[in-house]
Structure formats: structure tokens, C-alpha cells
């Protein structure tokens, strides 16, 4: 089979990401498949392939969405498929999905700029204090800020509302790490702890003016608790049957899902440290 892997130049900047891409290629080739990296200018060549694997950042506004949709229309097997991109890339749509499907998650509200005192009071009464403010297009902990009072909420939300009609305001849940549950075809593919760096409150935190990432600790997928597995699979089935990464907090009140991402990070020496067969399983999903 001929597999196209859609990438952008930045996917090769980081050594661990570059090595992971090369592992995908060598794994596919060892299984008897052709695996080629394609870029923006190769979009019209998509019908030449049997399957498409997207590693460039996905978003409905990006070239990756166009690539995904063209591949789907040409009958290719696609990871990430257009519907998964549309659902997972937008935290306002995820908020809706979580409500509709009773997914255990931090309390959240959609915010469109109602600064009446009644509404501001209601936000803090419902969600507590502090609150987390997110744009729908947040990724890798960017465009997410914490507001500890009304003044901060107004300041942060006004800044974000310049670019988005809708924001998500969420209850703040403190933790030392997020579970990252990698899901493929509605089965657990890998399990990690994405740690919060000391002095920060999210996986990528600004500490003393510098962006600092927390450690990634891989954990055997078979050790996942039945409750976490059940929550993760139930949610992934609401989105589709592709490749996803769920971020989940473990609290005294049980697990709380923060988000489900399409196009989850897979870096050599990080997510693949314990369950080393993730490359083979993804290639198999693309060709079967």
C-alpha cells in the first residue's frame, strides 16, 4: 500500500519528533508498504495514495483540513479524518459534546462577552475561583489563562474575544499531572502522565518568563484503570474511530476529561517508551 504522510517543515525541527516520523516510515517499509512525506504543494497528488496519515498540525483553517477532506473524497483511509479535526480542534464544540454525552469533565460555560454584573457573579458562583479561560482553538496549552478575579476575567476575555466570538470558561482543577490516554480505533494505544512543571499550572507553563514543558512519563497501557479506560473509549466513540489523545485529570471526585485531541503528539522517547508497538499499530490501522 502507498501511504502519504502529510507534514510541514516544522515537524522536522525537534529531534524527537523527527525520529518518530522516521520510525513511522521504517515501520511501514518493514511491513512492505511505501511511506512518503508530502507537503502543501503535493496536495493534488493525494489520489495517487491508498492512505493518508497527517502529522502537521490540524485545524479546519489549516492546509491539513484540505488535505484530509480531499483524501477522504478520493477514498483514502485517513488519520486524522475531517470530522475528527472539526470536532477536536474546537473546544467550544467539545464543550457541547461533553454536555450532550454526560462526559465527566470540569464545569464549563460558553462566554460570548456578557459583562453584566449578574453574569459575572454567576460565572464565579457556578465555577468557583479561579477559573480557566480558553479560546476554542487552544493547542499545546497556548491561549489558555487563569483568572483569579473579575478584573482578570474581563481583561483576558476581552483580549481573546477580539479573535473569537465564543470562549470557554472552566472550573480550575489543580493536579500534578494530566493523564494522556492515546486511543486508536477505540482501543487504548498508549498511556502517559504529562506532568505539570514545578511553579506552573499547565503542561506548558510560563515560569519566570520562559515556556517550560513538564516531563512525560510513559505508563504501560495495560495498567490503565477500568474507569479511565471506560471514560476514554466512550468519549472517543462519540468523535469517531481515529487516533486521539485524551487529557484527563484524576481528582478525589473521579476522573475529569479536559479534552480529546486529534493528531496527538507522538515523540520518540516519550509516548513510545513503554508500548513500543504504537508505530506498527498505527500503520496497520492505515492499511487495513
Amino acid at each position, binding site marked *: 500500500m502507498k501511504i502519504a504522510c502529510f507534514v510541514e517543515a516544522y515537524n522536522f525541527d525537534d529531534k524527537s519528533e523527527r525520529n518518530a516520523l522516521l520510525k513511522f516510515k521504517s515501520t511501514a517499509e518493514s511491513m512492505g508498504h511505501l511511506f512518503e512525506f508530502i507537503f*502543501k*504543494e503535493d*496536495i*493534488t497528488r493525494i489520489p495517487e495514495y491508498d492512505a493518508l496519515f497527517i502529522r502537521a498540525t490540524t*485545524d*479546519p*483553517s*489549516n*492546509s491539513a*483540513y*484540505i488535505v484530509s*477532506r*480531499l483524501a477522504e*473524497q478520493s477514498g483514502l483511509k485517513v488519520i486524522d479524518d*475531517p*470530522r475528527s479535526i*472539526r470536532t477536536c480542534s*474546537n473546544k*467550544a*464544540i467539545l464543550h*457541547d*459534546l461533553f454536555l*450532550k454525552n454526560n462526559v465527566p469533565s470540569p464545569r464549563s460555560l*460558553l462566554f*460570548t462577552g456578557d459583562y453584566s454584573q449578574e453574569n459575572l457573579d454567576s460565572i464565579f458562583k457556578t465555577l468557583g475561583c479561579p477559573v480557566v479561560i480558553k479560546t*476554542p*482553538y487552544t493547542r499545546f496549552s497556548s491561549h489558555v489563562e487563569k483568572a483569579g478575579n473579575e478584573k482578570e476575567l474581563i481583561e483576558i476575555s476581552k483580549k481573546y474575544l477580539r479573535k*473569537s*466570538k*465564543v470562549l470557554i470558561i472552566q472550573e480550575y482543577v489543580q493536579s500534578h499531572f494530566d493523564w494522556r490516554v492515546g486511543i486508536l480505533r477505540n482501543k487504548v494505544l498508549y498511556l502517559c502522565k504529562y506532568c505539570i512543571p514545578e511553579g506552573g499550572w499547565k503542561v506548558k507553563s510560563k515560569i519566570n518568563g520562559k515556556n517550560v514543558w513538564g516531563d512525560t512519563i510513559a505508563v504501560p497501557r495495560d495498567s490503565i484503570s477500568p474507569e479511565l479506560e471506560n471514560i476514554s473509549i466512550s468519549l472517543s466513540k462519540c468523535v469517531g474511530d481515529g487516533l486521539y489523545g485524551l487529557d484527563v485529570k484524576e481528582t478525589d471526585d473521579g476522573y475529569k476529561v479536559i479534552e480529546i485531541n486529534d493528531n496527538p503528539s507522538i515523540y520518540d522517547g516519550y509516548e513510545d517508551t513503554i508500548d513500543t508497538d504504537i508505530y506498527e499499530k498505527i500503520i496497520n490501522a492505515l492499511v487495513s
Partner: protein
Amino acid sequence: MIIVSEDEDESDSSPLLFLRQPVHDSVLNINHDYRYLRMGYYVSAHAETYGVEVTPDCTEIMDAYRNPLLIEKARRYGLPTNGYRLVTKPKDDLSTPVMLLAVNPFTNNSMKIVKSGSKLPGMIKKMSMDSRFPVSLHPVRGEVLEIIQMFGESSNDETSEFARRFFEIFNIPICKLIVQIDDGNVILNHCEPALRKEVKWDIVHEKVHKIKQSI
């Protein structure tokens, strides 16, 4: 059927109110702007999350608003186009006059026509934001027109049959179309949001009224 609109008199809900409620009935989403991250898009996404039929759905919106997807779909359904080429940087084999459309997340009303070959590299560099995003290039062979399509009606009599077919294929209630008239044929180049003031709301009202009566 629930009609969701800010502009249409016969609507059952405003977009903002609609987003705060569960949905149990099919939805007609009437908006002059369905762009991603705008209210028009969120209404359709909300309806889809609740598993109800919605016009237009998010796939249809994206297929119409992302230029390569628009042209590929038009081709598949036999709506005339004169092809497109995606580039991220200037090439030696590009000819003018040519229409350029930005395929990036930031730009609306991006259409530019370049008549002189010497100006083309600079315009591609600018519209691709220094090769970061593709630019869709369409040859210019006829008269370029902007028309407003409303439920298959056109703001321009010459393109009425074309607008009817466009709506049949793409299912977008209101949009602006950039077309060329070449030897009497209407050729599709682009689809983007209409401005509120460009829409003939009396036509929209009449169409919505008919739809309501037929339910």
C-alpha cells in the same frame, strides 16, 4: 424544523439562544457568514453535535469556503470551473492574467487579479505570507463578477441558472460567489461570506416563508 437566524423575521431562535439549548428538531441555519469560528458555523456544529439534520452542515460549509475543496466538489458535480493550481512560492511557468485566492486562516475578501507577470511573484509572496500558506491560482479568461446567491436565486439575472445549480450542489443558503462569464458560460472561482447589506432579505424571507409552509 427550527429556523435559526439573526436577520430573518420568521426565525424561531437567535444563534446565541440556540447554542444554549439542546436540539431535538432539524435546523435551517440562515446566516450571511458561515465562516469557521463565526456564529453561523457554531449553529451548524451545535445541531450536528445533537445528531439532527442541519442546513448547511459543517462539511458543506467547509467544502464551500475552502477554495480547493470548492473547486473539486464543483468539478465532481459538473459545475463549470477553469481549474486551479496551488502554489506557496512563485514558479516560472505561471501565466497572467490570473486570479489569486489566499488559502490561509486569516483572510477574507482575498481575491486579487494580477495582469502583469512581473507583479505576480510579489503578490504570491504576500498572499502566501512568505510561503507559509498555499495560494489558489485561477486563470482569468472572462469577465469577473461577484454575485450574491440566496437559496438558489442570484442577485444578477445572467447567473440565475448557475445560482440554482450552486445551491443544489453546495446547500449554502446565502453566500457571495466570484464567477467569470466566458463566452456566455458562467464559471465558478470562489465562494465567501456575503456582507449583510449585500443580501436581498426580501428574497430570503420569501424562500423561508415557502419552506415553512411546506413543512
